[in-house]
C-alpha cells in the first residue's frame, strides 16, 4: 500500500545526563522519499533513530507520523504505527532460524487469539501458513530464499544485514529506518544493497531514511540528505548541494569525501 504519511520532527532534543546528543533538530520527510542522515561519529544519528522508534526518551520536541504522535511512545506502539528499523549493530535473533526471525516480525498483523493458539483452531493453521508464505516472499525479495532454515547467527555479515531488512519489511512498514546498512560490506556488495534499497522504495512505495558513512552509496541513492554535527542539524538538501557545502566538507566529508 502506498504511503501518504509524512514524518515530522520538530525541535527534537535528546539528553544523556549532561550530554545533549540531539539538539533542537527539526526536519520533515515527504512520503516515499529516499533520504539519508549523515554526520560524523557521535553526531547523534543513531540517537535520532532511537528517538523515532521509542528506544530512548525524548527530552524535548515533537515527532509525528501522519496523524499519529510518536513522541515518547513505547517502541512496540511505534512499530505498530508502521515504523520499522534495522540496527547499527545487527540485532537479529541469532539463535533462531532466519524464517522464525521473519515470522516474529509479523506479530502486529496476527489475527488469531490466544485460545486459538493454545488449542490450534483451524484459523490458527490457516494464518500460520499465511505467515510462513509472507516470510518466504520477503526473503525472496532480499535474495535469501535458500537460507530460510539457517540459524540467523551463522550467516555472513552481509546476509545478516539483508535478513534484518527483510525482517523489518514483515511489519509492512510505511517508514523504514536503516542504520548503516552497508557497514562492513565490500564495494560489490554495497552495490547490490543499493539496488535492493532502491527497489524496495519503488515497489513497496515506502519512505526510507538511512544512516550511512559510505558516501558513494549515499550520494547515489538518496534524494535528500540531512547532515548532523554535534547534535545539530547543520545542513539539508540534495546530494549535490551537500557535497559542496563547506561546513559539511569540513566536519564530515574531508578531502576525499565522495
Amino acid at each position: 500500500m502506498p504511503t501518504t504519511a509524512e514524518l515530522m520532527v520538530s525541535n527534537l532534543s535528546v539528553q544523556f545526563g549532561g550530554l545533549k546528543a540531539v539538539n533542537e533538530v527539526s526536519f520533515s520527510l515527504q512520503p516515499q522519499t529516499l533520504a539519508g542522515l549523515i554526520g560524523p561519529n557521535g553526531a547523534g544519528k543513531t540517537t535520532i533513530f532511537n528517538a523515532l522508534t521509542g528506544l530512548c526518551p525524548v527530552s524535548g520536541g515533537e515527532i509525528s507520523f501522519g496523524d499519529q504522535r510518536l513522541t515518547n511512545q513505547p517502541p512496540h506502539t511505534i512499530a505498530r504505527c508502521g515504523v520499522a528499523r534495522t540496527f547499527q549493530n545487527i540485532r537479529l535473533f541469532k539463535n533462531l532460524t532466519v524464517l522464525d526471525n521473519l515470522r516474529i516480525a509479523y506479530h502486529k498483523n496476527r489475527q488469531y487469539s490466544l485460545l486459538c493458539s493454545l488449542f490450534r483452531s483451524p484459523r490458527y493453521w490457516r494464518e500460520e501458513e499465511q505467515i510462513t508464505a509472507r516470510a518466504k516472499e520477503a526473503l525472496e525479495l532480499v535474495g535469501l530464499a535458500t537460507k530460510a532454515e539457517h540459524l540467523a547467527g551463522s550467516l555472513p555479515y552481509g546476509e545478516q544485514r539483508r535478513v534484518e531488512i527483510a525482517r523489518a519489511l514483515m511489519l509492512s512498514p510505511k517508514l523504514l529506518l536503516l542504520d548503516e546498512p552497508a557497514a562492513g560490506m565490500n564495494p560489490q556488495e554495497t552495490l547490490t544493497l543499493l539496488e535492493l534499497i532502491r527497489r524496495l522504495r519503488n515497489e513497496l512505495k515506502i519512505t526510507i531514511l538511512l544512516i550511512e558513512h559510505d558516501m558513494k552509496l549515499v550520494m547515489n541513492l538518496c534524494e535528500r540528505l540531512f547532515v548532523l554535527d554535534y547534535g545539530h542539524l547543520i545542513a539539508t538538501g540534495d546530494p549535490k548541494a551537500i557535497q559542496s557545502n563547506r561546513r559539511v566538507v569540513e566536519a564530515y566529508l574531508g578531502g576525499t569525501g565522495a
Partner: protein
Amino acid sequence: MVKPRLTGLIKIILLLCIYGVVRLLESRGLLLPYHVQVLSLCCINVILVVSLNLINGFTGQFSIGHAGFLAIGAYLSAFLTVKMHVPFLAAILCGGLLAGLAGLAVGLPALRLRGDYLAIATLGFGEIIRVIILNMEAVGGAKGFSGIPKYTTFGIAYLTAIITVVVIRNFVHSDYGRACLAVREDEIAAESLGVNSTYFKVLAFALGAFFAGTAGALFSHYLQYMAPTPSQIGFVKSIDILIMLVLGGLGSLTGSVIAAVVLTIIPELLRGFAEYRMIIYPILLIVVMLYLPAGLMAGRELSLDSLARLCKGVKSSAHYS
C-alpha cells in the same frame, strides 16, 4: 516429513499405549504401587519443569521461585477440598488460577529487573510465600497441613501432564510463543518489531505459574500432607526444578520431560546408598553438565520425524555394513 494429522494420531495412540501398559503391568503386579507412585511424581515434576521452561527457557526470564507457585496451588486446593469440600477438579483449577494471579504479580518486577536481579526477586517472592504459609494457622502453620485426601491418581497426573505439555507446546509454536522467544533473544529488537515485551513477560509468568499451581494441587493430593519446608515448597524445591530444566535443556520441551522423569527416578534408584546418595547425585549432575553444557536436548526437540530419521539412519547403516 510425516503429515501433521497423522503424527498427531500416532502421538495420541502412543500416549494411550503408555497409559495402558502402566495399567496392565500394575494389574499384573509387575508394577508395584511404589512404582506407580514414582511415576505419578514424575508427571507432577514434568508439569513443573515444562511450565518453568516457558518462563526461563522460552521467555528468557530467570525465575528461581517456581516452588512458590507450587505452594499456592498445593495449599489452596488442599484447603478447598479439606475444609470446603470442593470437588477435586475445581480445586485444581482454583489452585492454578490463584497461582496464575500470583504469577501476574511476580511478572511485574520482571519488567524492571533483569538476569540475576530478577532471580533474586523471584527467590524472595518464593520465600515470602513460604513464610506466609508458615504463619497461617488455617493451613496448619509449621505443623503442616495433614489429612489431605489422596485424590491424585496416576491417571489424573498423567493426563494433566499431557495437557500441560500440549498446551505449552501449542503456545510456543504460535505467534505468542514466537513473541516470547523474541523477548528472550533480544528485547530491544523485539520491541522495535511491535512485540509488547511487558505483556509477554507477564503472560509467560502467569501461564507458567498457572500450571505450576495445578502441579501443586496434584502434589498436595498425592502426598496427603504439606509442610512449609524449603525442600517441599521453598527454594530447595525451586532449585530442584531448575536443575531438571537446565539438564533437559532450556527451550526444549521434550528435554524437560525427559529430565523431569530421569531426575525423579535417579534419586529413587540411589535411595539405598544412604549418605553416599548425596555424593553420587551431585557428581552425576556436574559430569552431565560438563559433557552436555546445553542440556540433554540442547534446545532441540525429540519428534517423530527425528525418530523416524534416526531409525532410517540406523537401518540404512545396518544395510551397508
